[in-house]
């Protein structure tokens, strides 16, 4: 039990660090349009003929905010789960429920990571001249792995519900 507590406390800080870095990076690309332009160019090339400024920057900022929400939610759930484990609540209903929510968040992250590139390219090229507008659909192994991982975590969550029930039963037997 002690190693679960120590490991969870350590991972809690890793999660907090990750969340802080994500929020800081998001703030930087929203506040610094040239940085966003560099990031977008690095990932999608120079698909926009009119650059990334004004309305496009606003739309991409909004999209970035929306796209990062499932990740932040997943990190918040990890923070809560590791907090429960650190408090010794391993086989409990609330830990199992948090695990299931984490699995759902991972599936949502997979969906968002598939849709985001399509929307980014749509925003970048909507004001291009006819013939230069683009629509891309990107389905990667990473999104598949993330969705599979989410499904696995949900299944483990259900198993933990059962384990919590058995543990409660055992506690009532002296």
């Amino acid at each position, binding site marked *: 039990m002690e190693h679960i507590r120590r490991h969870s406390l350590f991972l809690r800080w890793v999660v907090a660090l990750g969340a802080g870095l994500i929020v800081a990076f998001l703030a930087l690309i929203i506040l610094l349009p040239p940085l966003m332009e560099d990031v977008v160019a690095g990932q999608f090339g120079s698909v926009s003929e009119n650059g990334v400024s004004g309305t496009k920057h606003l739309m991409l900022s909004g999209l970035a905010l929306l796209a990062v929400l499932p990740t932040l939610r997943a990190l918040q759930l990890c923070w809560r789960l590791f907090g429960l484990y650190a408090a010794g609540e391993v086989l409990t209903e609330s830990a199992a429920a948090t695990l299931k929510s984490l699995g759902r968040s991972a599936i949502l992250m997979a969906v968002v990571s598939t849709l985001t590139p399509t929307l980014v390219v749509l925003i970048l090229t909507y004001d291009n001249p006819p013939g230069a507008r683009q629509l891309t659909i990107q389905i990667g192994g990473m999104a598949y792995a993330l969705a599979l991982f989410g499904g696995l975590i949900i299944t483990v969550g259900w198993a933990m519900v059962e384990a919590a029930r058995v543990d409660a*039963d055992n506690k*009532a*037997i*002296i």
Partner: protein
Amino acid sequence: MGIVVTLDVMLARRKMKSRELAEIVGITEQNISLLKSGKVKGIRFETLEKICETLDCQPGDILTFEV
């Protein structure tokens, strides 16, 4: 009624206190209290064996079935 725990009767017969039994059996006094009040789902054979050994009785002396 179902299974009725008569451990308190046996404890009184043997003039033994719950705390003393708990110490010998190796479970908490709170668990002995829960057992006496019948607020448990079950009892392990291991615990039952130690209680019977300590009180020098049979399982039927502390557990009875009532309709």
